[in-house]
């Protein structure tokens, strides 16, 4: 092979050395930053979202048996969260209420949940689940494609390796759930005009 480099070849070792020095510097800097480094999985993030959603939803008063009744976070179908969801909710309260996790099996009455995550395993039964919730005030959440079109309320979206969400305001309106304007401003809103809480 010919030596056909445009530059005099003596420049090359210097470039390699510079590259190595750069790498070294990056290492040192990143080692400092390493401590603060957080690597979260998709379902850890989604678990934290479920917890956060509760803060921004106003439920009709009949959703709770009494002023101290807990919030029920329900999972329908296979649980994709693993330990993430218990870690998020354990020992926490929202609006003075404790948080309770419930895992539902097929056919169980889902109306006791305040927020219900419908797992992708339930795709075929989705119409049954949603029609069973008709008239109740359960915030339904899923990451199934087409969830909002099917009448679901909050759908997680994956955008550039980040988890975002879309809200079907017609469906939340039918369920008499009032969503804060802050939540709506962060979401992709579909289905009619935006109705803000308290208006």
């Amino acid at each position: 092979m010919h030596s056909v480099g445009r530059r005099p070849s003596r420049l090359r070792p210097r470039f390699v050395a510079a590259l190595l020095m750069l790498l070294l510097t990056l290492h040192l800097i990143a080692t400092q930053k390493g401590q603060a480094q957080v690597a979260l999985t998709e379902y850890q993030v989604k678990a934290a979202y479920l917890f956060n959603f509760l803060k921004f939803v106003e439920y009709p008063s009949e959703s709770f048996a009494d002023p101290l009744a807990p919030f029920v976070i329900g999972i329908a179908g296979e649980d994709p969260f693993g330990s993430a969801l218990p870690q998020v909710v354990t020992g926490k309260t929202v609006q003075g209420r404790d948080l309770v996790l419930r895992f539902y099996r097929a056919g169980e009455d889902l109306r006791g949940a305040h927020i219900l995550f419908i797992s992708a395993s339930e795709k075929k039964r989705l119409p049954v689940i949603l029609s069973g919730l008709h008239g109740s005030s359960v915030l339904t959440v899923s990451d199934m494609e087409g969830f909002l079109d099917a009448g679901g309320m909050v759908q997680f979206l994956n955008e550039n390796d980040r988890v975002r969400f879309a809200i079907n305001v017609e469906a939340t309106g039918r369920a008499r759930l009032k969503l804060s304007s802050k939540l709506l401003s962060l979401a992709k809103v579909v289905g009619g005009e935006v109705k803000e809480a308290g208006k």
Partner: protein
Amino acid sequence: MAKIMSYSLALLFLGVPALAQKSEPVRGSTVDLSTMNIEDLMNVQVSSVSKKEEKLSRTAAAIFVITQEDIRRSGATSIPDALRMVPGVNVAQINGSTWAISARGFNQQFSNKLLVMIDGRVVYTSTFAGVFWDNNSDFPLEDITRIEVIRGPGGTIWGANAVDGVISIFTKNSTETRGGMVVAEGGNIDQESGMVQYGGELKAGTDYRIYTKYFNRANLLDLNGQNGRDGWHQLRGGFRLDSTLSSKDSLMAEGDITTGREGELGFVLPSITSPGYLAESEQINISNSSLESIWRHVYSARSDTSLQVSFDRGKHRDPQNPETRDTLDFDFQHHIALGVRQDVVWGLGYRYTTDLILGSLTVFEDPPSSTHQIFDGFFQDEIALVPDRLYLTGGMKLEHNDYSGFEFMPSIRLAWAPNAYHMVWLAVSRALRAPSRNDTNLVLNIGNFSTSPGGPPELLRLYGNPQYHDERLIAYELGYRTAFGNHLSVDLAAYYNNYDNLQTTEPDAPFAESTPAPAHVVFPLTYENLMHGETHGLEITANWKVTDRWTVAPGYTFEALHMHTDPTSADTVTGPFVEGAVPDHTAQIRTHFGLRRGLALDASAYEVSRLNNQGPSSNVTIPAYTRIDAGFTWKLWEETSFSLVGQNLSKDHHLEFEDVNGALQSSQIRRSAYAKVTWRF
């Protein structure tokens, strides 16, 4: 120096395990997720977003989308190399800085039936109705969000020159490039190369990024295996600004400046008595500056408009015909949903382009300077005959240019999805290739072919034809997409194209000329539209997710061209050249394997069958070749990755293209390798 190097190497390798240990305990569990608010969550990059079941694209066209991930995994260092993964797109590197790129045939250095856009701005020179890839493709690949490639006509929306394909390059919104990025790269061909970028929020709702990039590429080998003197170095800088003006208005503005210098063995006719071209080592200075803004206004979820204004100044200082061109472009589009079933887009456009092309004995334009304007309007309606199942799209474009007057480009497309897993589409469209400066104003001296010693030189000369017509195409396309669960998807496209008014070079009556001395007889050739032809082909791509960590993407292209000259034509060269300029068969396979701890392996292989009737004497065969690229990426942690990539691994060097109509001698593409580190902060 050696001491420093060994010291840093030692630290480097000592540092890695220590770091891995440090970062391990924070992985997930110790972070209190409940303290994170929604804004935080929205910006967390998750380590394993599972690809969800994706809807099959409803587009009734042969579309292929190259994602940022595809670019990164391909190891490509330029946009042309990234385009190799698209079946139906012909990519052949001619020398260090020149590529022949086309879709569905008609490939040459000055390919003229493909439209290329960057963020909606047409990058196109009316000199030859094509793209100078060298000063329009050195964008930082890290900033590209996707490249959409449509094979087949796009004239109904994009107008003349979107004949065989449309390539749309989209850069990332500045909100996606907050923070800093440093890229450093070095290798035997892609030598010193690097980029520095910083982006952030200027004020609430307004984001920016600013970058600079430099690369230096080594010389390749000429046809004899000697130094091809075609090295290339280029410096680019630019910015992008994205602003939300109100809840209904957004503004994007971006600007870029690039300047570089590339070598080539250019074809030069030293004197009119010379029997033909000599390949001379030349240096070409290139530069380009562009400014673009797009203002979008949303009236409602069913109606929005965009107004795009752009200006571009390109300089391509080839010593034989240095060119400067200014282009100003206005583009307005309105998208509106009518009723529940119709989705309408219509638009108006105006382009003003002015150039100055100086010449030499070898080649010049007559006149050297010219100005042209294009006006156009289009309308397209997508009708949901059966929502989610059957869509009919009809549209047309009316365009007026100074060369050929009014042009009419209609198309009709039908998409049928019997269920969520199958989609069939059909399309018939008419597209036109408008005349260029070269077609109409070129004067090219080819050489003295006199055989009688003592007699006057007999100079063969090619003239552009001011009466050159549009080249026309009627295309019939058929496609099928299917998905088997979430793991395997297959995309098929077939076409039959019928072209008319294609270019030939025809002899005219000889005449005598006294200047330049000595007195000589000119045997003129003139561009005419005396060829027609059919092409047909098949393109298949598949994407198979074998496991969560392993994906395989094979592809195959078959293409065949049959050219026929009219009875009045005397051109026997152009037809065979066009037919032979693309391979009959191209097969490829790309694979990605994600190992543990941020390690990933990527490899791709391309098999390209031979090209016939190429080269300056038009009877050269370019042998079939296999290109193998492989790369290894190590994501050390969230912000830093290191990669090692080898390209063209199968052979020390190989030839990809020779162009009978080109302006330069080809080089042989060398085996190469580079190392790259990317750091975000």
